C-alpha cells in the first residue's frame, strides 16, 4: 500500500514539475482522456487477484479443518496419540508417524547443516572468483531437480549402498530418507547461509585479520558466529522443506509405521506423516474415520510447518531490526 501511494505521489509531483517547465501552462495538466479509467481498471484487477490469493489460502485452510477436525471427536486422544497406526483395526496412533517425520527431518538436518555451512563458507570466503560464479548457479539447479527423480536415485543407488555397507535387511531406511532430504535441503541452506555470511561487514574480517588471525581463524571465530542468526534461519527453512517433502521420502524410507525408539532404528524403515497421507488418501472411503484421520495428520503437519516458518521469520525479523551486527 505504502509503496503504491509513494509512487503515485512521485508521479504527480513529477508531472507538475514538467508542467512548470513548459512555458505558457500553469498548474497540473489534466490527465489524458481515458487514462484514469485504465488506471482504475488495472488497479482493481490487481486488487482482485491479490485478495483472491488470500481467499484461496483461507479456503484450503478451512477445508483442511473441516475434514480433519472431526477426527479429534471421533477417536479418543489416547488412541489418536497412541503408538499403533492400523486404520483397518480402528487404531489411529499418529505417534510413530510424527516421530518418524521428526526422526528423518532431524537426521537430514544433522547431515545438511555442516555440509551446507561449509559449502556456503567455501563459496563466499575461500573459492576464487570463477569457481564461485560456476558453483552458485549449479546449486540453484540442484534445487530444481524433481523429488521423484531423487527418489528414484535413492531407491536404485543409495538404498542398495546402505543395505550392503550397513549390513541391514533392507536399504529402505530412515537414514536413506535423511540423506535424500539433506540433499534436497542443501540448496536452500547454502544460499541463505551464503547471504548471511555475505552481510557480515568487511570491517569485521579486517578487525580479526589485523589482530593476526589467520584466514581460517577469521572465518571460524568471527565471520560464522557473526552470521549465526542467518545460518539458523537457513536451517529452519531447510527443515521446513524437509518435513513437508513427500515423494522422495515415500520412495526410500520403507514406510513401516513402527516406533523408531532406539538409535539403530536410523537403519530401519520408518513412515513419515507426509508419506502416510500420500499413500493412503487414494484408498479411503470419503467421509470415513480413516479419511478424517488423514486430514488430521495434515493439520498436525500444517501446525508444525507453520511453527517452523514462524521461528525462521522471527529470526529474519530480529536480524533486520537489530542493525549493527546484521
Amino acid at each position, binding site marked *: 500500500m505504502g509503496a503504491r501511494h509513494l509512487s503515485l505521489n512521485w508521479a504527480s509531483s513529477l508531472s507538475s514539475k514538467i508542467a512548470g517547465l513548459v512555458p505558457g501552462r500553469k498548474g497540473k495538466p489534466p490527465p489524458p482522456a481515458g487514462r484514469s479509467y485504465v488506471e482504475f481498471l488495472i488497479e482493481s484487477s490487481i486488487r482482485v487477484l491479490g485478495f483472491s490469493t488470500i481467499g484461496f489460502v483461507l479456503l484450503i485452510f478451512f477445508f483442511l479443518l473441516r475434514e480433519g477436525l472431526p477426527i479429534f471427536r471421533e477417536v479418543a486422544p489416547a488412541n489418536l496419540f497412541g503408538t499403533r497406526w492400523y486404520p483397518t483395526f480402528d487404531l489411529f496412533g499418529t505417534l510413530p508417524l510424527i516421530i518418524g517425520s521428526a526422526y528423518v527431518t532431524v537426521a537430514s538436518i544433522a547431515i545438511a547443516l555442516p555440509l551446507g555451512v561449509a559449502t556456503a563458507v567455501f563459496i563466499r570466503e575461500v573459492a576464487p572468483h570463477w569457481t564461485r560464479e560456476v558453483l552458485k548457479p549449479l546449486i540453484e539447479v540442484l534445487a530444481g531437480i524433481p523429488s521423484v527423480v531423487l527418489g528414484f536415485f535413492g531407491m536404485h543407488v543409495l538404498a542398495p549402498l546402505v543395505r550392503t555397507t550397513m549390513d541391514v535387511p533392507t536399504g529402505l531406511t530412515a537414514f536413506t530418507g535423511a540423506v535424500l532430504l539433506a540433499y534436497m535441503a542443501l540448496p536452500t541452506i547454502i544460499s541463505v547461509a551464503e547471504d548471511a555470511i555475505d552481510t557480515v561487514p568487511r570491517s569485521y574480517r*579486517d578487525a580479526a585479520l*589485523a589482530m593476526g*588471525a589467520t584466514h581460517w581463524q577469521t572465518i571460524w571465530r568471527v565471520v560464522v558466529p557473526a552470521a549465526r542468526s542467518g545460518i539458523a534461519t537457513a536451517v529452519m527453512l531447510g527443515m521446513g522443506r524437509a518435513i513437508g517433502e513427500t515423494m522422495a521420502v515415500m520412495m526410500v524410507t520403507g514406510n513401516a509405521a513402527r516406533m523408531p525408539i532406539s538409535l539403530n532404528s536410523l537403519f530401519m524403515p520408518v513412515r513419515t506423516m507426509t508419506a502416510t497421507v500420500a499413500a493412503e488418501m487414494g484408498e479411503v472411503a470419503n467421509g470415513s474415520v480413516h479419511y478424517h484421520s488423514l486430514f488430521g495428520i495434515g493439520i498436525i503437519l500444517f501446525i508444525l510447518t507453520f511453527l517452523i516458518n514462524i521461528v525462521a521469520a522471527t529470526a529474519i525479523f530480529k536480524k533486520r531490526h537489530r542493525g549493527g551486527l546484521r
Partner: protein
Amino acid sequence: MVEKKVSAENINYFYGGNQALRDVSLGVPAHSVTVFFGPAGGGKTTLLRLINRLNDMVENTRMTGRILLDNKNIYDEDVDVAILRRRVGMVFALPLPLPGTIRENVTYGLKLAGMRDGHRIAEILEKSLVQAAIWDEIKDRLDSPASSLSGGQQQRLCIARSLALEPEVLLLDEPTSGLDPISTRKVEDSLQELKQLYTIIIVPHSIQQAARVADQAAFFLMGDLIEYRPGTEIFTTPRDKRTEDYITGRFG
C-alpha cells in the same frame, strides 16, 4: 638520518583500472607519530592498509614496489602474514568490538597467537588497557559485554586490543572520527605516550588533529605524495601550493 622503521619504495597501486597510489616513496622513523593526510580518495588509507597487508583480501587489485619493515620486504614470499599483522597492529575508523566481553576482546588476539599463560595474559590485559587510557573506567567490569561501552570507550578498547599484541608499528585509520572531543583528546594524549614504545602511523580525521599529533606529515592528493616533512614545518610553511591550499581550507 634516523633509522627507518617502515619504508615504502615506489608504490603503485591499482583497484581494477583506477590508480590509487602513484609512485609513492617515504620512510617512517621509529618511535614517532607519522601523519598521512589529505582529501578523501588520496590513497592514504590504501597505503596504511598495504603496510599490514590487509588489502591482500581485496579482489582485482595490483601493486608494484616494495614495503620494508626493518629493511625486510613484507611482500616477500616467505613472510607469514598472520605474524606480520601481529607486528603491525591496526585500529579502524569505526570502533569494532567483536561479540563478547571486554576481557575477551583484548585477550582474543593473544589466544589466536597461541598464548596460554593466564598470569601473563592478565598482565597484558591490564597494561594495554592502561596504555589505551581506559583502564580506570572499566577495570571493575571487564566481564561485561564490549557492546555495553560508549563509542569512545569502544574505540579505546580497540586500541587496547591492538596494543595487547605488543606490535612494533601501530596503524590508526581515523581512530577518532566517531568520537566526542573529550574522548578524542584522551586518544590523542595517549598517542604521545605510546610513541615511546611504538612507531605510530595515523590517518587523522581533521587537519587540526594532524597538526596536533604529527612529528612528520605526508600530504596525499589523488594518489600522489605531494609533500612529506616534519609537522612543525609542513603546517606552518608548506612548500607546495596545493598543500597550502588544502591546509588553509581552500579546498578539501
